[in-house]
């Protein structure tokens, strides 16, 4: 389960969608949040944009791959549009029988999302510039 959202991410709603079953002893959630600094610059806000069709396909592929690599259920949602400081940019939730696989799968998913999904961030700095990030 992978989604893109122009609205604030409601982590509770996503835990409910993930629906950790009664056989799930471990739930690991990751939230990437908009920080007020990046490489020494004061950040004021962010934009995210995506190649949406491709991002949805690739995100879904990543979540499915995670569920094949690890015995877990997983979900991920990424924000698009304009975000304020402190807002959740990406949420990953993983439920499994044991914590080992839940931690490993959650970490694997966020790393793959960052590497493989066509989403871009533009940072607006306190000084007024706005710069697309292309690491």
């Amino acid at each position, binding site marked *: 389960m992978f989604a893109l959202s122009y609205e604030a991410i409601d982590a509770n709603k996503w835990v409910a969608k993930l629906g950790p079953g009664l056989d799930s002893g471990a739930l690991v959630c990751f939230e990437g949040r908009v920080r007020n600094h990046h490489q020494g610059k004061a950040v004021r806000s962010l934009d995210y*944009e995506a190649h949406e069709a491709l991002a949805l396909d690739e995100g879904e592929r990543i979540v499915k791959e995670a569920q094949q690599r690890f015995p877990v259920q997983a979900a991920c949602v990424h924000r698009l549009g304009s975000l304020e400081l402190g807002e959740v940019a990406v949420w990953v939730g993983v439920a499994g029988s044991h914590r080992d696989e839940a931690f490993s799968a959650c970490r694997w998913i966020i790393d793959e999302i960052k590497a493989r999904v*066509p989403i*871009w961030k533009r940072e607006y700095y306190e000084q007024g510039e706005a710069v697309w990030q292309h690491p």
Partner: protein
Amino acid sequence: MTTKHRHQARTRKIKVQIRYFAELKQQAGVDQESQQCEQPLTAVELYAQLRERHGFRFGAQMLRVAINGAFAEWGTTLNDGDEVAFLPPFSGG
């Protein structure tokens, strides 16, 4: 024979839809444009033309290309009606 050779050598016009994202969009000043091209033309050849026109700083080796909504090889020959998206390095998450 001569007719056939002339036919093979003759280039055909195709039209492709080009999509830009993030810094490429900013530098191009548009998020998409359509372009008449002469076939055969590969994705990397098309990008070279567009890079020269718009002054993109990224070489193709820094980018990914997607054709009709799927990741593609740079050497893919473009067809009439293709949507070609140039994807700078990702920064989601």
